[in-house]
């Protein structure tokens, strides 16, 4: 039932997107070093966009006379980057101020029915800085509890209406199996047991819905709303993203995936490199970073910067996310490209690193037809870089989201400009 509703929502999104981009121009980005990611790089290639979508990518593309031309000679052209794990849009100030829309109260740690995007602030001032770092889509995820709720993928196109920026919702169910206190359990074994109970109960609920409505089933560990939300996970239509770091946690995650035949994604994965072969064999992707080697807890003793590269070498699909400290899920989503650069410094190939922040996250969450690569039919999420996108000396010079160039300055830009000469003028910029 819920599934039908979501399909409806998505259809609506598509319609609105088309309507709002009717006036959009045809844009041809020419002459750049084009990295489609879905195919080999093209020197002096063209990316042609119309009505918000990419219509052609290649060397000898006929450019319509009415096309607005963007000369990218000497520049690098990539798909817009995708950050597969953020808190973006759920409160601008991370700590000690303002409302946060990330955590549901849930029932005994389970909040599967929580649709986090219903609290998404499309006007968050943190969106512009992320975009300035070449990030055009993010997975906006809930956190906390055992089952945190459902995440959405949104485009950072600056639209006012939520429906104008949703790419996919729900995109994945998020749960964490690394923090017993947060999951309201006493030990990992209990936590895993509860997760298994939830999956079992969902299966039973699916078979006996009418009995449930007549109160003729045994008690379930979750509410009707939560069980409904878990159906696509149990049916293998929606991924379950499991936040896990320790090898033992990953082992149990793999065992659950096998026993229930569900599709899981490991997020965090500090010690995933120790289980790379098993993850590869089970075709389980890992979201992890390349800027942390601190054994910050007894669950992350094996944390190392080579993690992503080692996983990739073993054939595991990897999406790079921030895993350092600071504020990489909000203020510094813009630094995603440096995570990729550091992954290269620690053993990942450059091509894999680019894939890990574009097409791989799109594939992991089932949106590779829309975002993550430069190919006909995809959304016009394109970045023109002054040089190698992973380098500090390079910048995202032009960012297109859904075919439109967006150059609205961030609040940080305005502050920098205002204080460039002291004392500042208080009516500018």
């Amino acid at each position, binding site marked *: 039932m819920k599934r039908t509703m979501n399909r409806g929502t998505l259809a609506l999104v598509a319609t609105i997107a088309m309507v709002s981009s009717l006036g959009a121009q045809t844009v041809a980005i020419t002459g750049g070093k084009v990295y489609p990611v879905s195919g080999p790089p093209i020197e002096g290639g063209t990316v042609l966009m119309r009505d918000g979508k990419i219509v052609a990518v290649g060397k000898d593309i006929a450019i319509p006379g009415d096309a607005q031309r963007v000369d990218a000679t000497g520049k690098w052209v990539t798909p817009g980057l995708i950050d597969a794990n953020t808190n973006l849009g759920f409160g601008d*100030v*991370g*700590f*000690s*101020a303002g409302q946060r829309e990330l955590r549901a109260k849930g029932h005994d740690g389970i909040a599967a029915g929580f649709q986090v995007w219903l609290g998404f602030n499309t006007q968050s001032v*943190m969106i512009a800085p992320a975009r300035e770092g070449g990030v055009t889509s993010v997975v906006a995820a809930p*956190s906390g509890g055992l089952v945190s709720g459902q995440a959405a993928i949104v485009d950072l196109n600056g639209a006012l209406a939520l429906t104008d920026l949703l790419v996919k919702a729900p995109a994945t169910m998020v749960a*964490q199996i*690394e*923090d017993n206190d*947060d999951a309201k359990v006493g030990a990992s074994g209990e936590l895993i047991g509860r997760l298994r109970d939830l999956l079992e109960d969902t299966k039973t609920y699916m078979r006996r819905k009418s009995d449930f409505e007549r109160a003729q089933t045994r008690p379930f560990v979750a509410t009707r709303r939560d069980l409904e939300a878990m159906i696509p996970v149990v049916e293998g239509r929606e991924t379950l993203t499991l*936040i896990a*770091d320790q090898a033992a946690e990953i082992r149990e995650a793999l065992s659950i995936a096998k026993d229930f035949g569900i599709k899981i994604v490991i*997020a*965090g*994965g500090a010690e995933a490199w120790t289980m790379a072969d098993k993850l590869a064999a089970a075709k389980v992707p890992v979201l992890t970073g390349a800027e*942390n*080697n*601190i*054994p*910050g*807890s*007894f*669950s*992350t*003793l*094996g944390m*190392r910067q*080579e993690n992503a590269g*080692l996983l990739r070498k073993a054939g595991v699909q990897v999406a790079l996310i*921030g*895993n*350092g*400290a*600071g*504020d990489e899920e*909000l*203020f*510094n989503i*813009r*630094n995603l490209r*440096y995570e990729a*650069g*550091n992954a*290269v*410094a620690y*053993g990942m190939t450059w091509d894999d690193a680019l894939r890990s922040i574009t097409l791989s996250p799109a594939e992991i969450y089932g949106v590779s037809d829309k975002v993550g690569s430069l190919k006909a039919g995809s959304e016009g999420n394109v970045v023109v870089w002054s040089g190698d996108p*992973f*380098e*500090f*000396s390079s*910048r995202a010079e032009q960012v297109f989201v859904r075919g439109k160039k967006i150059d609205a300055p961030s609040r*940080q*830009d305005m502050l*920098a*400009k205002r*204080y*460039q000469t*002291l004392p*500042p003028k208080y009516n500018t910029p």
Partner: protein
Amino acid sequence: MRKVVFAAAFSVLACSPAKGSQAPAPKVSATGDSTKPKVTKDTTTTAGRGAFSEPFADPFPSTYKPFPSKTTVIRNVTILTAAGPRITNGAILLKDGKIESVGASVNAPADAVVIDGKGKFVTPGIIDVHSHLGVYPAPGVEANSDGNEMVRPVTAYVWAEHSVWPQDPQFPRNLAGGVTTLQVLPGSGNLIGGRSAVLKVVPARTVQGMKFPGAKYGLKMACGENPKRVYGNKGGPMTRMGNVAGYRTAWIEAEQYRRKWDKWNADKKGDPPARDLNLETLAEVLRGDILVHNHCYRADEMAQMIDISHEFGYKIRAFHHGVEAYKIADLLAKEGIGAAIWADWGGFKMEALDGIRANLALTQQAGAKTIVHSDDPSGSQRLNQEAAKGIAAGKELGIDISEDQAIKWLTINPAWALDLDSKIGSLEAGKDADVVLWSGDPFSVYTRAEKVWVDGALLFDRDDAAEQWRTDFDLGYVPAVGGAQ
């Protein structure tokens, strides 16, 4: 995943209150304490030095000795000296723990280890003036969370070195990031948090074995949100005005104490005054013997802290974090106060809301002493990358920051903040041979520290995993640092 890391970061950064109680003030007085049963006739001859409140007292002296070193030449290498323009295709000679010579070429002694630095860069060892290594070690368990004495707002009596765990596995990781000197500070939960410790990043059994010989102490002070959050429900301060009243009250007492002891130390007449560890540290600040490192985010608060320093006649050596330093960069330049700041952190709390990436470039442009700091065990390993972000942000505003300038943010400027710029922070003959060989341009994301020397001793070699420093904790728990697997 990051949740764990975040918790650690916030306990440092935002100093969330620990389970501290309102314990009574400790008895810190020694002599002159009427409860002491026996007072000898001549205190000056029979009492230990602990009886007196003396300038530059050093009751926990450094036992650091440089590790054995070989005479080393790195040639055919690009050198960022932090003392002048870069030397391309240059050479540097390290001998007896010191930099013997730097230039287009050097005379290599016959016994020297000669390293070909083709395509590589040499810089001074990086100095992080804002670290909590050892006091907030990894793993971040409550049992080892020793960085914030949040029992009362003014705890100038605590010394960070008494919390430093030399087996913190973060130390060797820091060294692998090219960091050779650290200032370890108490946290920012208190108005006045205590003394800092300046450490060489070297393996040792004791913290005394890491202490930088002759380094001055720092005093950690903190503005804004943290103290008022910690003490708002514990008797105050509850507001920023309460914070300011708290600093001033402390300095008033400290000034009385300083006068009393300076007089006694000068004439040694009669019984010595009561010693008080809290006021002693503050008095040392007033004498100029301890450097003030002030955690402060907002421009308006920094300006007020400067006024307080004028009122009581001490100097603020550097503001730390200073996410709004760019708003008063001219004032910082005029006052000669360092801006120890991040490249791009901000937004994580209200007082950090206005963080901008151009902070480094704008403070530099205004003539302030710009310093890149970390306050983070992970970021500390990539301070070179943080500086690179600062260069890029400057470029966007049309401010040209050369690499020769940016290297100073990581080396000679932080050395100045610790008053150690005559010993470390640049590659000049006679200075400590704290040196990093980088695989390429240190401002590239792909570059890593390959070799790190501390006082001429090669203490990190990425190519030699078997010889890499591993702390006691690492053994059996953690895979080798930086070892290619």
